[in-house]
Structures are given as C-alpha cells and as structure tokens.
C-alpha cells in the first residue's frame, strides 16, 4: 500500500477550500459557491480514488493508517485510518457535501447572512466529518466529535428559520451534555489504560481488549452511550432533532441528519462494542428496548405532523431505531444491515429534505404540508422525485434502504424473534405516513397560491436541481440492486467487531421458531 496520506489530504482539502472562500470579498457570492463546489468535488474525487485502493481482504483492522505524535504527555496522537465502516461513511459524507452545495445554491442570500460564510462552514464541517470517521485515536475522535458542533451550531443559528436561535441552542446544549459525559468516561478510560498498560493511551487498538472489571466497564460505557444516543438520536434523547431539522436550511438538515447523526451509531459500533464488550452485552436489552420504542414512537408521531421537516425528523428518529437495533442484536447480518442502512438512510434523507427544500423555495419557504397539493399536476418531474424520495424512505424493495432494513430485521429475528415482529410494525406505520405525505402534497387540487396563471405558479425542476438529485437516486438504486461491493467492504469490519465482542453468529434455527439464545 502506498504511503500517501490519503485521509489527511482528503480532510484538509475542504478546509483549504473554506479558507479560500472566506478570503473572497463579500460581493463575490457566486464565486464563493463555485469554489466551494470545486473543492468539495476534489475531495469527492480523492475519496473515490482512495476507496478504489481499499483492499477488503487485508486482515489489518485499519487501512491508510497515519500516525503522528500530538500530546504525548497525555498519550494522545494524531492517528487516522479506515475500516470498511469508516470508508463507506466517509464516502457518504464526501458525496453529500457537493450535492448539498449544489442544491442549496440559493438557500442563503446576503440579507440572511454572509453567503461565503455559509459555504465555508459547510466545508469546515466536511473536514470534521471526515476526521470523526477516520480517527483511530479515541481522543482525536472526541475532538472532532465536539468540534463538529461549532460549524453546525452556526449553520443552524445563523442561516435557519425564525426560531433558529432556540433550535441551535437546544441542539448545542443536548450535544454538550452528551459530550461532557463522554469526556468523563474518556478520562476514566485513560486512567484505566494507564493502570493496566503502564502508560495511559488513547490509541483505539490498544484500548480494545483492555481488561476492566464489570462495574468500571458499565460506568464508562454509560458515558459514551449518552453521547452517542443523544447524537444518533435514540428515544428518549431525541427532542432536539425536530426543532433543529425544522429550523435549519434543507442543506444543513441533510448534513445534520444524513451524516452527523450517523456519528452516534458509528460510535456505537466502533467504540462501545469493542472497548466495552461485557457492558455492551449487559445493556443490550435496554438499548434494544429504546430502539424499538423509538421505531414505533417516531413513526406514530410522524403520522401526526403537518410540517414536512418535522415529519421527516421523526421519521429519521424511527429509522435510527432500526440502526441501533441492528447493532445491539450482535449478529453479523444485523450489524452489516445497520451499516448499509446508515448509508441508505443518509441518501434517502438527503433526497427527502432536498426535494422538500425545492418545494419550499417555490412556496415562499412554507414547510406546512397543508400549504401544498396537486404538485404532480403542475410540476410532474418534481413530484416524481418526491415520490422516489418518499419510497426510498419507506424502504421499497429494490432500493438501498430496503436492504438495510431487511438485514437488520433478519439479524434481529435470529436472536429476538418477537422484537423483530414488533419492529416490523414500524415499517407499516412508515408506509402510512410516507404515502399520506405524498398524497397530501402531490395529489389533489392545486392550491390557488401556485396554480398555473397565479402570481407565482409552481415551476418544475431546474437542471441544477436535477443534477443535485441524480446522484442520490442513482446510488440508492445501485446499492439496492447490487450491494455486493459495499457489503464486501463492510463485512470484514463487522466481523472484526463481532470478534472483539466474542459473539459468534448463531446457526440458523429454522425448526424452532421463538428459540433464541
């Protein structure tokens, strides 16, 4: 493998872009957008080039590893590297950023705040997202994890809707609470490692297999778990999400739910399970209960929403339940499904929120479902995209999200058949609210406000919007019908995680329904 510092380079490119964009004079808003797009595309190109060199058969847990001493006094190093899970999530982040930039071309104007600032913040966020998935030093992960709050906080608080300050602060406080509990655990972990290894370290691989008594392990687990459960968000730590999603711009919402929240579930797989195997098994029933409640609760609340952004925020909460469920049933297929579903959910969330953003842009910024109707008559192509996004979100067979959800349920059924049965109800509810949403917006009479011949008739999609949505549609379909390359990359990492847990997949038990372990 070459020694080229792939991950650092990919991470630094958007950062350079952000600096360049910020150095532009205020009047050059268009140039700022174009430059931001170019830099994010370069990063995407580099990511693809790196992904092509990723070798799924290598036994090392991490590839493209780099390491440099940072604060040796505290055992902290700058270490990055990716396994299959990190790779697909970096790929997701690298894909969504240019899409969001393109789709959000007109999301901000000078009245709302500095245009270049918006795009520079998105680029900074990209750097941090890549960092958080690539870090192999737990402390470095924590730094990225916390630092991500800053750009997203400003993205919501500066460029969002009328209640943006409230939403931004709520989001920040929730995240800080989680982050500080994680910090306490982090320090505890450091002290434990110091007692056992002679010198404290944050190196991830050294921390895996650390022997802790179960009380310590359970305590430290909780600190990390709080942070991840708030970030993901799992029931009952989800109440910040609907506000944040509603008040932010569509682009911010996509990055927030599509990528940032995945850090929570990513953290569970990467850190909770391997470092605290005993505690993970101990708490698994609790987490599974939270996940199932989240699936049903999120879906039921989504049914009652009249605001499309809130609707899809609750829908995401429901879907995060599936992801967490897949992780904590401790089966290979469940966890692989979760990872695949993380990517699929990122794509479908992006599609849904971007289409919703296009609709809102045409309707004076209203996100109320009752303000819409009959879109398929006045803007058929846009309605088509809306339908696709909706179907992808309800996990239509043939699309990526179906595969993820199905694998999660399959993995769950092997261990807890009844949980799988209950969780499946969530899919039914999802179908109900998604289809109802489509019905209320795309069919029926066209409201006078944007009927043909009115002052602002609803127009169909523009070339820019199609360009932004096309990659999402394409990837959703490709991953849905031909997931093998992605699963080949994901599976070794999942198997490695399962090994650290000491869990072996149960043999298929076809004859004894209900016979778990």
């Amino acid at each position, binding site marked *: 493998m070459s020694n080229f510092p792939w991950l650092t380079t990919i991470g630094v490119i958007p950062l350079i872009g952000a600096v360049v964009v910020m150095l532009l004079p205020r009047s050059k808003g268009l140039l700022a957008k174009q430059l931001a797009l170019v830099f994010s595309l370069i990063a995407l190109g580099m990511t693809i080039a790196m992904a092509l060199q990723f070798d799924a058969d290598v036994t090392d847990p991490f590839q493209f590893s780099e390491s440099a001493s940072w604060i040796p006094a505290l055992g902290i190093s700058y270490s990055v590297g990716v396994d299959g899970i990190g790779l697909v999530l970096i790929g997701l982040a690298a894909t969504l950023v240019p899409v969001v930039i393109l789709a959000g071309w007109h999301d901000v104007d000078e009245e709302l705040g500095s245009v270049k600032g918006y795009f520079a913040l998105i680029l900074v966020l990209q750097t941090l997202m890549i960092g958080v998935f690539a870090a192999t030093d737990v402390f470095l992960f924590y730094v990225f994890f916390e630092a991500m709050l*800053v750009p997203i906080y400003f993205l919501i*608080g500066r460029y969002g809707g009328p209640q943006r300050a409230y939403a931004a602060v709520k989001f920040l406080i929730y995240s800080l609470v989680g982050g500080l509990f994680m*910090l*306490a655990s982090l320090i*505890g972990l450091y002290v434990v490692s110091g007692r056992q290894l002679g010198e404290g370290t944050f190196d991830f691989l050294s921390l895996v297999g650390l022997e802790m008594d179960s009380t310590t392990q359970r305590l430290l687990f909780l600190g990390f778990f709080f942070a991840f459960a708030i970030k993901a968000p799992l029931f009952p730590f989800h109440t910040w999400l609907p506000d944040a999603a509603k008040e932010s711009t569509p682009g911010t919402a996509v990055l927030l739910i599509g990528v940032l929240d995945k850090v929570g579930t990513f953290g569970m797989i990467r850190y909770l399970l391997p470092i605290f195997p005993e505690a993970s098994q101990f708490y698994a029933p609790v987490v599974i209960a939270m996940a199932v409640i989240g699936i049903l609760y999120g879906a039921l609340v989504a049914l009652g929403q009249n605001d499309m952004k809130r609707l899809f925020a609750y829908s995401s909460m429901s879907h995060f339940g599936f992801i967490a469920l897949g992780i904590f049933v401790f089966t290979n297929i469940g966890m692989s499904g979760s990872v695949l579903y993380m990517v699929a959910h990122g794509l479908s969330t992006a599609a849904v929120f971007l289409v919703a953003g296009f609709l809102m842009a045409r309707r004076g910024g209203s996100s109320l479902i009752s303000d819409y109707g009959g879109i398929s008559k006045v803007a058929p192509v846009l309605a088509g995209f809306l339908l696709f996004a909706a179907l992808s979100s309800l996990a239509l067979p043939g699309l990526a999200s179906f595969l993820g959800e199905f694998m999660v349920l399959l993995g769950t059924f092997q261990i807890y058949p009844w949980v799988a049965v209950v969780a499946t109800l969530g899919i039914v509810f999802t179908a109900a609210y998604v289809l109802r949403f489509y019905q209320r917006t795309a069919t029926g009479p066209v409201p006078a406000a944007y009927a043909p011949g009115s002052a602002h008739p609803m127009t169909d999609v523009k070339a820019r919007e199609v360009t932004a949505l096309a990659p999402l549609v394409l990837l959703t379909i490709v991953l849905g019908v031909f997931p093998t390359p992605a699963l080949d990359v994901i599976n070794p990492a999942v198997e490695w995680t399962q090994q650290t847990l000491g869990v072996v997949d149960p043999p298929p038990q076809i004859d004894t329904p209900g016979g778990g372990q």
Partner: protein
Amino acid sequence: MDDVLIAPDIDYLAVAPMIIVGVTAVVGVLVEAFAPRRPRRGIQLVLTFGALIAAFVVLISQAGTRVITGSLAIDGPSLVLQGLILLIAIVSAMLMAERRVDPAGDAFSPRASALPGSEEERVLSTRGFMQTEVWPLMLFAVVGMMLFTAANDLLVMFIALEIMSLPLYLLAGMSRRRRLLSQEAALKYFILGAFSSAFFIFGAAMLYGFSGTISLPGIADALSANPGQTPLIFIGFGLVVIGLLFKVGAVPFHQWVPDVYQGSPSAVTAFMAAAVKVAAFGALLRFLYVAFGGARWDWQPALWIIAIATMLVGSILAITQTDIKRMLAYSSIAQAGFILVGVIAVNPEGVAAVMFYLAAYGFATLGAFAVISLVRQDGGEATHLSNWAGLGKRSPVLALSMSLFMLSFAGIPLTSGFIGKFTVFEAAILADAVPLVIVGVIASIIAAFFYVRVIVLMFFTEPAEVGPTVVLPSVFTTLVLAISVAVTVILGVFPQPVLDLVEQANVFLR
C-alpha cells in the same frame, strides 16, 4: 531556645525576582513623590514593565533551582506559579496602561478621594491629572503574590497575604466610571478580606500552639509525631484554610467576589481574577500538601463538600446574572471549584493539573475582561448582557475572541480550558475521586449554558437600535487580546511543552 537572633542564610539569587519587583515598587513610590507630574506616567510604565520583565528573565535563569532559603521554598511549583504571576502581571499592566478606550483618559479616577461627580473631580479630569500610584501599588501586589506561593511558614504566608491584598483593596476602589460601585467594592473587599486575614492569623496561632513551630514542614513533623486529632489542630487547620479559601473565592466564602469583580475597573478585575487565584491556589496547595499532606484523610472530606458546593453554586448562580462582569465573577467561582478538584487529588498529577488550569484560566480571563473594557456606552463600559446583543455583526473579531474565551471556560476541545479540565479530572480519577468528577461534569454542563448564552447573544440576536460602541483600542489592549487568544489556542492545541513544564515542577520541597 536561644536568645541570639541568627540571620538566616539566604540564597539571594533564588529570591532575586521578588527583590527586583519589590525594590522597583519602592522606587515607584519615590517617583510619585519627587518626579514632576508630566513624565511621571512614562517613568512608571518603564519601571513597571522593566521590573516585571527583568524579574521574569531572572526567574527563567533560575529554572532549575530547588532550594529552601530561610522561610521561602523556591521549588518547582513556586517557580512555575511565580512565572505565571509575572506573565499575568505583564499582560494586566498592558490593560491598565490603556488610555484610548475611555475618552476621559485611563480607567482610573484622577483622585480617588474626590467625590464622584463633584466639581473637584471635573477640574482634575480636565487638567489631565492621573493616578499613577496604581503602578507601584500593582507591583506591591505582585510581590505579595510571588511571596505567597513560596512562603514556607505561616508567618511569611500571612505577611505575603497582606502585601498582596492591601494594594488590591485600593486598586478596586479607583474606577473612573461608576465610582460608588467601585468604592463599595473596595470597602466590601477590605472588610471581608480583613476578616479572612484574622481567621488566618488566628488559625496560625492555634497551629503554633499545637506544634511549637510556624514552619510548614515543622507542622507536618509535629503531626506525624502526635497522631490523633486534637481540638487545637482541628480549629487551627480550619481557620487557616478558611482564610485561604476566601482568597480563592470558594463557596461559602465567595460573597465578596461578584461585587468586587463588578465594581473594580476591568483592568484591575482581570488582574485580580487571574493573578490572585494563582497565588492563593499556590499557597493553598503548599499548606495542604506540605503541612497536612500526611493527614489528607482527615481534611479531604471537608474539601470535597466545599469543591462540590463551589462548582454547583458558581455555575447555577451564573445563569441568573444579567451583568457580564457579575456573570464572569460567578464563573470564576465555578472555575475555582474545578481547580479545587485537582487540589483534593493530593498527587503530583494534581499539582501539575492545577498549575496548568491556572494558566489556562488566567489568560482566558485576561482576554475576556479586555473585551469587556472595549464594549462601551456613554463613555463607560456596557456591561449589561442585553447590550451585547448583535456584537458579532458590529465587531466580528472581538466577538470571535470573546467566544473563544467562553468556549475555553466551558472546556470545549482545542482550547486551553479543555486540557485544563482534562488534567484536573484525570488527577481526581487517579485519586479515586470519581464522584467529584461526576459532579464536575454536571457543573460543566450547567456552566456551558451561560457561556454559550453569551455567544448566542453576540451572534444570533439582533442588535438594539442604540447599542454600545466598540472602541478601537491602542496597541496595549490589542496586544492583550492577541496574547490571550494565542495562549488559549496554543495551550489547547499544542499543550505538550507546558504539560512537560508543569510535570517537571510538580513536587513541593519540604
């Protein structure tokens, strides 16, 4: 007992930094008496900065010194803390030297005895009178602080306490603006400070009665020779610690902090908040570790309660404040609680962590008060929080710096405050004080709320129609801001050299 007074053998080089600052302070007083009015300020500035910088240079050259000379212990902690005090003093002196932000001159009343708003004061102002005594006063305070961290017996510690405190009482009352508030602050500080001094000296007498010596190692020896608690040692320890905790601003001895921080001129508040904490924690550490390190099991529970109360009360009361200086005062109480967590650890890691934390906290505080001194309305500072709305639009650089300091106080990664919290909590976990760390985390969460609120105000709130103006400062305040920002970032991103330094200097000589 012999009646002959034997002059102690003193290592003059080791105490040279203190001598330099002290002698210059005396010279400064003479300058006040003999130099003509016009060049006086210039002379004082040269003397002050010259003395502080010279003392710092000498201190650096003495970096390896570990010696007990007379009643002073020049060891790792005292050298590091003295260096820190000198640096903080240099930066605060720059703040005090600022003359451009207030249209009427510097931040100090031309003659503190003149009635506020009186004809006399007006005349003094228009004729350009200035209170240049602030410079020698400040130098005296610095001498006291340096002595405080090095004092190895209770009497010298008491003298240092007084040398440090008396000039500060005066400085607190000299504000040009809002004189009554300032004078109230000075009086309050003086009366409560006098109380705490009395506690301290009374406690010292008790300890002397118990052990027959005033030297800290001597008390430790007496303790190990006579194990078991006697009322004398119990009361004596309690009274001395109360005196020290008062200076630190720990709950329940914190009542003076908000009023004094609010009333004093911002430059003095910055100096007080940053440097007094360093000195007082230095003395507290030395007292607890050297004299009572062996008896830690007896005092740790009491300090646990005080640390928990300090963290929680400071953070919770800060939320309700509407004046930014008062808010920072309560925040400094909360920060004192976090530092106490490191003190309670009673291990070398704890000493190192406390020193690092003090450096991080000190410079962020200096920066924050520098920002406050620049946001003004009708000549005076606009300290009501509502005045800060929309500052980010008016002056993004200033608002960003302030945000950085707030984030550092809140302990967000990549700022100095984060590494500080990290090391303090680590030391506490090493000492098996896990509940203390949990309370610390909860207090941090509460504290984060009001730090973030300042950022929200500055960036996400629409500015009022007639808001405060942001004054363009002279090179002095600009430098203060630049230094504070740089230290906050560097200690957050590349803390290794400083961590090494405090780690090498974490053992008290006894």
